[in-house]
């Protein structure tokens, strides 16, 4: 079946890809830079092109609660948000994961306040890292679209039954026009049959979801979320392989290893910054520097084995982040270190926070990082890269 490419804005493309998944209940609250996704979906529903209930809510807490309830009632559900909106969903997301409801959502990644910024980084998604939501990251708009189909497929798989979130960089993807294929409806239907809930809310057969547990049972209830999330790793690989079979293009998966095979220096990153990194790698390869990129496409569950396989031959690793754990260091950096350390490898891993709140990372910044770590400079503890010292006041103000 011929699928045609169109020049589309990222958020619009995602909305149409989501519609092809035939969600039955959508609830969302506007927040920049996500708004165009839910706006377009509400238009698609209003036009009668998608047989779904679009529930207008008073907040992201309400949006998450609506899809939680609708999913428990057996519907395929979708929501999208950003930044503070995701944080407002946080409480409900832990419940959705614990109740094992396959809600799919998108996060148009945006910084967190304060200071107020509407621009891209990954602090929002990383702040909900530990709640049991599967997290996929897109490099471009095509991948963001395709990952939505994969997200539904994986989330609804009976071996998984967990919420899944597709991350696409705010503005850098959501507002950028790219040639994109909207998945064909017939192929989408073939790939994603209607959702059949294992357990659902039923007035004639009542049940309590996420019921009260005494201390003798609660730990097992939480462990099941951990276990299901771990077990989703091979399911994500399967669903991505099937995607390629049905649609004829590769998308999804756990990692992308770009020129890593013989690389001495490997960068680790996720999201749209990978495009810039690949350009720099191409240039530096031409100059004879053995450098590659391991791009994280599946961030939760953490694809430890695949990460180890990609990095184990490297002489040094640099993790490029768009977030951090204040008072500790990076977020992905220690995860990469843990994977290597657990395998008995002491490859130096440097961590760099290159961008918060939408700051540009020009190619020469990536080049500087590669030069620094490849020149044998010793491992850099998490560094806020190119921090503008001249902007900082007296850090301990005098009264």
């Amino acid at each position, binding site marked *: 079946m011929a699928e045609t490419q169109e020049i589309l804005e990222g958020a619009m493309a995602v909305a149409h890809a989501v519609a092809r998944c035939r969600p039955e209940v959508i609830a969302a609250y506007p927040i920049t830079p996500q708004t165009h996704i839910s706006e377009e979906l509400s238009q698609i529903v209003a036009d009668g092109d998608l047989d779904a209930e679009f529930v207008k809510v008073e907040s992201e807490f309400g949006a998450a609660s609506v899809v939680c309830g609708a999913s428990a009632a057996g519907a395929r559900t979708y929501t999208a948000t950003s930044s503070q909106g995701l944080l407002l969903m946080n409480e409900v997301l832990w419940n959705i994961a614990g109740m094992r409801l396959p809600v799919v959502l998108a996060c148009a990644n945006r910084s967190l306040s304060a200071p107020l910024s509407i621009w891209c980084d990954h602090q929002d998604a990383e702040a909900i890292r530990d709640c049991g939501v599967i997290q996929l990251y897109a490099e471009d708009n095509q991948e963001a679209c395709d990952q939505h189909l994969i997200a539904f497929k994986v989330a609804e798989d009976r071996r998984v039954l967990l919420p899944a979130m597709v991350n696409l960089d705010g503005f850098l993807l959501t507002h950028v026009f790219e040639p994109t294929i909207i998945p064909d409806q017939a192929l989408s239907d073939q790939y994603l049959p209607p959702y059949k809930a*294992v357990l659902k809310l039923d007035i004639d057969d009542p*049940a309590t979801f996420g*019921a*009260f547990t005494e201390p003798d049972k609660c730990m097992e209830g939480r462990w099941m979320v951990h276990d299901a999330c771990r077990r989703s790793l091979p399911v994500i690989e399967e669903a991505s392989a099937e995607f390629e079979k049905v649609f004829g293009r590769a998308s999804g998966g756990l990692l992308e290893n770009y020129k890593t095979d013989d690389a001495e220096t490997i960068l680790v990153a996720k999201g749209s910054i990978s495009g810039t990194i690949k350009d720099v790698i191409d240039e530096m390869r031409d100059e004879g520097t053995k450098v590659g990129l391991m791009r994280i496409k599946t961030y939760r569950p953490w694809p430890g084995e695949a990460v180890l396989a990609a990095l184990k031959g490297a002489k040094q690793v640099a993790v490029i982040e768009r977030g951090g754990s204040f008072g500790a260091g990076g977020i992905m950096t220690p995860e990469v270190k843990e994977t290597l350390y657990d395998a008995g490898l002491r490859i130096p891993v440097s961590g760099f926070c290159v961008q918060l709140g939408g700051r540009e990372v020009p190619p020469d910044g990536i080049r500087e990082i590669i030069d620094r770590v490849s020149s044998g400079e010793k491992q850099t503890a998490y560094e806020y890269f190119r921090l503008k010292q001249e902007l900082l006041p007296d850090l301990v103000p005098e009264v």
Partner: protein
Amino acid sequence: MANKLLSTEKLSIGCVAPPGASLVNKTGAWRTQRPVFKQKDCIGCRACDLACPEGCVFGDPKKKQFDFDPDYCKGCGICAAECPVDDIDMVMEEK
């Protein structure tokens, strides 16, 4: 509960429980105080019964005798606070 995936012995996926699970789970275990229904000056107004957030006050207004169910009472003291004739005391739960 008709669904065979649910039991009261094991957890289910999503910790979905058959209705009435809170009858099996005795939720009064974390109380630090408990009410004492003195049954002396009671006028049978049912304020305690209606105000109890746990629905665990029971009694007969005609007999003017009320008491509580210790398996579910949280010791919140609302019944004692609401009683217009001060016929309910809160005392420390000591075992």
